[in-house]
Each structure stands twice: as C-alpha cells, then as structure tokens.
C-alpha cells in the first residue's frame, strides 16, 4: 500500500487504458481518489469502522448496503455480494482481471471505490448469463478456446462485451485496442482475438 502514495505517472499502460475503447475512466478517476482513500484508511485505523450507505443496481437487481468508504468496487462485488466471478490479480489497475461494466462501460473495479458506483448500474460476468444460459461472447470464448487457466477470462469477456456494446462490428485494430488492458499470463491471446471476432459476428 505504501506504493499508493506515489503520484501516478503518465505511463504506457495508463495510456493504453486511456485510449482503450474497452476500459475507460480508470486513469481519469483514480489519482484524486487515492488521496481520499489514504485519509480514510488512517481514520478507519484510528477511529474504527465508519460505514456509508450505498445503493446501486447489480446485474439488474437493486441493492442497498453499507460499506467502509475505502471499499473498492471489486471488494464490494467479491466480498460483500459473493460474486466471485470477478477476479483480482494485480489489485492495482494494471491487468484488467477485475473488469466489470459500469453503466455499460468497462472499468477496472479494483481501481474504483464502491461509493463511486452509487446510483449506477454494474454488470459482472455473472450478469451476462440468462439463467444458466451463456451469452454469445461467453459461448465464443468456449468455442474458440479463448481461455487457459481461466482466471483472467471474466475480465477478458467483460472487456469484449464493452467493445461490442460500443460497436457491434469492430475492426481487428479496435478489438486489439479494446482488449489491450487485459493481461493473460497464459497468453491465450490468439484465441482471445478469435473469440472476440467470432462474438462480433454472432451479434
């Protein structure tokens, strides 16, 4: 956490995040919030838990809950709502594994405070299903094996969904731009590309 005190520099991945059609907003939002969250950490340690009421729509369902102000959106989703499909890998806005849709746009949920989602609509990987039925993007990832270990997969699929929400017929370049904020250490990239191209064709 000590590293958080450093000012966020303009860097390659932040730049990619900024220009990516898939994942937006992270760079623009976070620097200011880090200062706030650091202060809150201190207050929490010193004064015990102060919780704030939060209401949002998650996967189509309205919820109200109390969270510590420093709680990230990813922590709310995973720890409080038990939607463990959203993964945390770097927990630092660097890898995209925690990508969810916030009002339809892809965001790194580890890099957004839960309170910033107040009044908004969040879609997680679980929200793409209809009952037990997968959506076309999820199906394409199985068919074209855009998966290895599967840990980054929910984030990959959410970024793909965001690209297709914005533009159902993306070019390959747009797909690469949009997916470039999601690291797959198994490096299943060729099949991830195929999966997104195929999903675009199905929609």
């Amino acid at each position, binding site marked *: 956490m000590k590293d958080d005190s450093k000012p966020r520099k303009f860097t390659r991945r932040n730049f990619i995040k900024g220009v990516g059609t898939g994942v937006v907003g992270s760079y623009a939002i976070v620097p200011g919030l880090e200062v706030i969250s650091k202060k809150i950490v201190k207050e929490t340690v010193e004064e015990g838990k102060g919780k704030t009421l939060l209401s949002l729509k998650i996967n189509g369902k309205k919820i109200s809950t109390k969270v510590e102000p420093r709680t990230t959106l990813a922590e709310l989703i995973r720890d409080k709502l038990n939607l463990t499909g959203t*993964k945390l*890998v770097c927990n630092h806005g660097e*890898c995209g594994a925690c990508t969810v849709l916030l009002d339809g746009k892809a965001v790194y949920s580890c890099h957004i405070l839960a309170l910033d989602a107040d009044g908004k609509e969040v879609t997680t990987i679980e929200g793409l299903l209809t009952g037990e039925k997968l959506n076309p993007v999820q*199906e394409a990832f*199985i068919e074209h*094996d855009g998966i290895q270990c599967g840990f980054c997969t929910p984030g990959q699929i959410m970024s793909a969904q965001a690209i297709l929400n914005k533009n159902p017929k993306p070019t390959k370049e747009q797909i690469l731009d949009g997916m470039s904020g999601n690291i797959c250490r198994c490096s299943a990239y060729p099949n991830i590309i195929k999966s997104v191209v195929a999903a675009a064709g199905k929609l």
Partner: protein
Amino acid sequence: MPRRIVKSKLFFDEKFIDTIGEVSNEKYKPWEPNEKLKVIGKSIPRIDGYDKVSGSAVYTFDVNLPHMAYARILGSPFPNAKIRNINLKKAKELPGVLVIITSEDEPKISWYYGTTSLFDSHVRCVGDEVACVVAETEKIAEDAIRLIEIDYEELPFVVDAKDAMKPDSPKVHDWGNILDGKPSIYSRGNIEDGFKDADVILEDIFSTQVAVHNPTEVHCSVINWDDSKLTIWDSTQAIFGVRDQIAGSLKISESNVRVIKKYMGGGFGSKLEAGKYSVIAALASKKIGRPVKITLDRKQMNLIVGNRPDSYQKLKAGVKKDGKLTALKHYSYGAVGAYPSGAGCSWPLRSLYKCPNVSTEEYNVLINAGRARAFRAPGHVQGTFAFESLIDELAEEIGMDPLDFRLKNYTDIDPVSGEPYTSKLLKEAYQKSADAIGWYTKRKSAGSGKGNIKTGIGMATQIWWGGGGPPAYATLKLNRDGSVQVIAGTQDLGTGTYTFIAMVAAEVLEIPLEKIQVSIGDTSVDPYCPSSGGSMTAASVSPAVRDAAEQMKSKLISGASAILELPEDQLKYQDGIIYNTKDETQKIEISNVVQKMHERVLITTGARNENPKGYQANTFGAQFAEVEVDIETGKVKVLKIVAAHDIGRVLNRKTLENQFHGGIIQGLGYALMEERLIDKNTGKVLNTNMHDYKMATIKDTPDIQVIIVSQGDNLLNYTGVKGIGEPAIIPTAGAIANAVYNAIGVRIKSLPITPDKILNALYS
C-alpha cells in the same frame, strides 16, 4: 500379472530422479494415427469452459468458508537483516485483529532444505516472511501489518551473482554463496583433444535476465481444521506434494491432510511446492479455531514465490570446416536467490547435437533476493538462447547455412546416455517449419535490408524431456445409465487436463464425451498422480486413463457374456454396445450390463505403463521467427512464429494449439521485455507489479503457425503422448535473437532484447 513394481528414471525439476512405482503390465494394441480415431486428436472445446466463462469456477482465491478469518504476511523491507525486536502492541490493539504470529512465538519449522525456518529472525531477502496477521477482514489484516514495529539490524548484502562469487562478498549464509561450495561438472570425451581437432574455434558470452512467473491467481490457501484433520484448498500444481510437505511440517499424519484444488489461475512452475504461507495459516487457524484464508499480494508474487534465475554463460565451440562439431564447452553461473535452488542451463549444449567432446561447469550462486523456482523449462530457456545463438555464429563463421549446420550435427542417439530415442522427428520439424516460414526463399543475408525497418528470419531448436512416467493412476466409474466419472489425483493448470481425460475415456469406451465427468485435484478421493510440472501430466495420466477404460471394457464384455450366456470371444464391443458376432441382432448396451449387475457402479483403476528400458524419451522441435526491427527506435516487432514439434500424439488439437501460443508468447516476452530489476544500492526489487514488470499483451501477438510432425510415440506409452507445455517456450527466444541478428547484422547477446541494446549495438 496385470501390475508390477518397477524402477525407472524420470527427469523432473532439473534432475533425473529414480522412481519406484507400480505400472500396468497389459499389452494394448497401439492406437492408430489420429485421423482414424473418433475423439483423440480432434479440436474439442474444453469441458470446463462453461465454469470459466460463466464465473462459476471456484478457484482457491474464491473459496469462502463460514466464520472465516483472513491472513496477510509482513515481509522484510531489507535484503539482509537480523530482527532485533518485534513490537506488536499497536497492531494487536487494532479492533478485529485475531492473532499475530512471528519468529518469536512459533516452533522452528525447517524450510528450504534446512537453510532457514518458517519465520527466521535472520531475513535474507526483501519479502522474507517476518510476521503474519490474522483478522476479521483482509483490510484489517493489512492495516495491522502497517502497525507492526520491527527493529532490524541491517547487514551488508549482495544482489548480483558476479559480486556474490567474489571471496570478499557479504555471505548470504555462513557456508558461503556458492551452493555445495563447488560447481556442477559434466564431461564426455576429451575437451582439449576436441579443440585440437577443430578447424575453427569460437568463444562468446551470453547473459539472460531474471524473469518472474506472475501467474494471475496469487499464491493462496484456505485452511480448515476439523479437530486433528486439516483441509487445505491450495492454488497448487502438486496436490500430493503439498499434502506431504504440510503434514511433515506440522508433524501430523498425511491421511489427516486433505488438499483440494479444482481450478487454479496459472502456475508455470511457481506452484510446485508447498508455500510457507500455507503452514503459517494452518498454525494461525489452529490458534483461533476458525478457518483462515491467506493470500499473497502482487508485490509478494514478484518477490518470494520464485523466478527464472539469470545466467552468465561463456560458450566455446570447435568445428571442422565441413560443419562437424568437435568440442563444446560451457561455463555458467546464475543467481538462485537467498535459498538453495537450481540455475544450471547447459543441458541443451550437452544433448542437442552430436559432439564427442563436451564439458560443462555450472555454479548456483546465492544472493540476497527471492529464491528461484522451476519456471517453464528451467535452464533450457536460458541455455537454448545462448547455445542456438552460438550455433548460428559458428555456421556463419564457416559459411554454412544455419539449418544445414544443424542437420550436419543431427543425432539419432542421445549423446549423453548413448541410448536411442523412443522417437525423434526433428528433421521433419526442421523441414516443415523451414518451408512454412520461407527459409530458403525469403531469408536474406544478415543486415542486408534497405530502409529503417529491417526484417529478418531466424531459427532455434528445442529439446526437452516430457515423456512422463509411472506411477500415475486413474479410477473410472460407470453408472447404471451408462454415464462415466473419471477420477485422478492430477491438476489442470489451464492446460486442458480435464478435457483430455474425458477424451481418452470416450475414445476407448466409444461413448459421447457428454456422458463423461472428470474429477481431479483432491488428495482424499483421488488415486495418485504426479505433480503437474516437467510437461509430464498428459504423458503420465492419459495412459492410466486408457488402462482404466480398457479394463472397464473387458469387465463389460465379461458382464455381457454372463448376461447373454455367450463366450466372451463371441462378443464384439462397438459404440457402447456389445454384440453377438454370430447374430448382431442380439446385443446389449453397456448401461444395461450395469443395470443387470448387482453393483450400482462399476469401478476400475488404471495405471501408467512402464517407459521402455534402454531408450530416452524426449520432445523435439524447431521454431522459426520473422521479425521487424526499427533501426531508428530499436523496437523489435515479431511478425510470425512457425513452430514445428515432435510431441508424440496430439490429444486435443484445440488446447494443444492454445498452449503452444501461450509458450511462444511467453517466450516472446522473455526475449524482448520481461526483466526483474534490483537496485544494487538498496537491494530492493524495482518492478514488483504488473505494470513495471513488462509482459506481452494482446498487441504483441504475432501470427503463429503450429505444426505437429508426430503421430504418436507408441513405444513410449499406451497413448503415445509426450508433453507440450515446456517445449513450446524453449526455442522462442533463440529464434527471435537469431532473427534480430539476421535483420540488423549485429548480434544481441543479452536478454531481453530491448530497444536500448539494439541502438547501442548499432551505433556505439
């Protein structure tokens, strides 16, 4: 006798190990080439795909138990220090903190071959475990970590292997900085005579960097005690290894430890051993009487759970004018970190080509940094880059085509053991990949391209083990409706283990894949299988599954014989139905056989057969790279990789290609960008996150063509399968380095090949 116990040799974790284990002694007819098989070799979507794309796959990181507490570890901020005093007062006062354990109140549990203990009051690298806090939430545990006050006595340190080898260097351990106090030596023939015979002698120095595994799922465990019984969910490549190591550390019975791992977010070798964190969490859990989840953070992932060691390699080769190698000499050292591990990298030089005179000398050097662990083809990735670069230099020196030079030194006998291979189709791999990349048509002489963007083509060869071996078992259960469950104590790292197990059972029993469920990763339930490392999983487990399914088929024929009152030799098994060969209208489905038998579930357990004696089982391959180098910016772009390999039989074309892609792209990252950096002045790692530690992204993806030249190694095992996980990454960096040379006419001898190195080489 259907089973017997045999002694065999297996290459694992950088050394040959003797294994004594039970093997199946059946003689099954070798499978036909894949095009004649029904399921095997086809492109089948992975059967665990739904779980992974729906978010329903539960990884260790996702396991939540009722009343669970959360643990975090405090690591040393210094590379070498003694702990004078630990003050836990403020941390303990924080509401929600349940227990804190440190070196002061824990039994000395030996770790890393007895060179340290679970919590050592002498920390020898940044990140070395100092204390563990267990709290009501992860956040509270993190807060409490920051409130712990430690008084360290900082000691002189060394973080560079070259420095550590000097006599006056600070010592990482009292016994010195060179593991075993001496190098590891190998030789054959007479190296001096070999150099005397040579027409041309070439010597060169290569170096490679430290690379970090960085699997996506952090190392983590969930611990639950039930009186004296311990259940551990662990993100591991070795469920039985973890079980035994934890039981030994805690001095409890192995049967009281259950290790579960259904899904894991990558390992690449970093999860082949039990982690300190699991034992620490088990101790803490016992104290508080609650389940505990312990997770490392990404910084710790980059510090203390392994890396590919760096290497300094001095190579010397003697060659005749006609291209025949007469002598090969290798001297190397590499930093294994603060505790014993391996950094040797001379195996490719020893084993790749015919050469009568070889000598190697390797030093494993201790430094004050995180300990190395096996990382996808340990040693071979570093060694192949250096050796295959030198081979290209030799070829150029005597004016020979690099591929012709390799063919000139081709060997059908393993030069180390003198034994033949179970199969070797490297010539075919060379030929097919050379044709696919346009080796003889497109490749120009080094540095001859015009303009600022220069293209080049290069190649490198791969050798690895990967034949797997016994013991490995699989249990097959057949239900009354004809559905099947296969159970095996193996692991799926994302490699497709679940799917190939189902495919093998479906192939033998001739039933639809949908009827088969696979359960793996539970030491209390599963029959034993080896750790998933060394590219051994498919080659060890798939034959055991075949044995189990073949036995089930025999059992069903025997059952049908009793039911139909016909001799077994008058029965024929086809598509899950057993026919009277004299009257095919008389038949019985396998589900009916089970229904008519008193057992509700039919069970067989299959075993891996023995590897053939007197043979070496190796995988081979060649990769060709086409690159583009911008001589103004120094940037390298890999355009295309053609990979042609002999890996025995393809089980699942879809997952095989994917794993090749992954190995190649990881190899590309290693060649061009990955590098752990340590500040020599402070001993601190500078890039402990996924931003500053550069890994390949989707935008670095080249065009990749995977060619498999082998049909199945029927001499090796029941399925003819060899492994692919490691072969995929081994030659990539060498091929890219040789292609870069071909593009710009200047050789980069140090990985990663970053723009600054290119520009320096071109203009300094």
